[in-house]
């Protein structure tokens, strides 16, 4: 006899069930966020009052965390030199999904007051997907609190999905990275394999730029991309 409880749900029902589970997960997730304790530029000086007793972000469930693998939020607190960007990308790829990137200050939006510097990048979103910007030079702690609340709302409503974009459009992000670091740039993380694992492998995950990755593949890259997928001989 077919049990009522153990029946296999049909596709529509299953997706509905998953939607409910996702909603519950997102609701919980939004109330327990860890910021990676990694600061660049001048914005770092605004963080201590936000985190500690003055503005106390802990009451929102937001705390600093020391390792990228245990953090949810990567806070880019100001200008990024090309050299730092390399480290930021390495850090970002180590973080476990779902992960959220906040660009703080004008520098991450358009270069800010360092717009004419040869050594800093201008638009952070070319290199890693950015969930939210906090404009200002620097934004006050109140603005940061407001931003955190907005991010919590976005996560709760299921709108903070930029991390998926990194997998869907990995080729484009990698292309921008290669333009700065040279064609042999690669990270120890096999992003393409991760994209397959998360079932986020899209049409733009691989392309001309990831083909270069296969060409210069280091020992860290577990699987080279077959030529018939890349389309090169």
């Amino acid at each position, binding site marked *: 006899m077919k049990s009522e409880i153990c029946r296999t749900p049909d596709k529509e029902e299953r997706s509905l069930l998953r939607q409910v589970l996702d909603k519950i997960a997102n609701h919980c997730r939004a109330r327990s966020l860890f910021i990676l304790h990694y600061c660049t530029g001048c914005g770092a000086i605004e963080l201590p009052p936000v985190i500690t007793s003055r503005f106390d972000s802990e009451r929102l469930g937001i705390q600093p965390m020391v390792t990228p693998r245990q953090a949810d939020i990567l806070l880019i607190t100001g200008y990024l030199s090309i*050299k730092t960007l390399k480290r930021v990308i390495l850090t970002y790829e180590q973080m476990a999904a779902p992960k959220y990137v906040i660009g703080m200050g004008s520098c991450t939006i358009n270069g800010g007051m360092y717009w004419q510097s040869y050594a800093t990048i201008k638009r952070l979103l070319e290199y890693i997907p950015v969930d939210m910007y906090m404009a200002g030079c620097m934004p006050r702690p109140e603005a940061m609190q407001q931003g955190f609340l907005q991010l919590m709302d976005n996560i709760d409503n299921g709108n903070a999905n930029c991390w998926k974009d990194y997998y869907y459009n990995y080729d484009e992000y990698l292309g921008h990275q290669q333009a700065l670091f040279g064609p042999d740039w690669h990270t120890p993380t096999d992003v393409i394999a991760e994209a397959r694992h998360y079932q986020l492998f899209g049409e733009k995950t691989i392309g001309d730029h990831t083909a270069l990755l296969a060409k210069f593949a280091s020992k860290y890259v577990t699987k080279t991309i077959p030529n018939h997928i890349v389309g090169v001989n």
Partner: protein
Amino acid sequence: MSTPLPEILDSTLQNIPNLTFTVQDRHRLRIELHRDRLPALLELLKGRAGYLHLSAISCVDWPDTDEFELVYHLWSYEVKTLISAHIHIPKNPGRYISVYDIYTPAAFFERDIHEMFGVYFEGALDMEPFILTEWYGPPPMLKSFSSVDYVKETFKWQEYSPDWLKDIEEKGGQVVE
């Protein structure tokens, strides 16, 4: 010269020919000399006058002349005086000798100047990239290098057209750069 030099410094400086100096302050002395004489001056200042601390080497790229100016800043803990020794080297080929054998901290300064200005120091400890490890362009501190042009060629900009700006533009206004 209003303030007389300490005796030990005066006798030391007399050993170097074609040397001009100006006492700028009680604690500051500016020396200009020919580039060939600089290592001898540094040896004497360190060995006899107690100038143990090479606090910096700075480089100036003068746009109108074909020369780099190198400034060696030396500090004495005994007479409490900062000496800046100025020399000029031709931009082409832009080579000079390292003073690493006299002052070991010179290694960092020379490496930095090599990176930022392209001056090669013969006999230096290390001339590999120091800060600009991700840089493949010309030495960026040269006056001939335009940072703005480089940025305009290399980077794209965020589009900026908020609604309130559209309203202003409709009325004939604009954002002044």
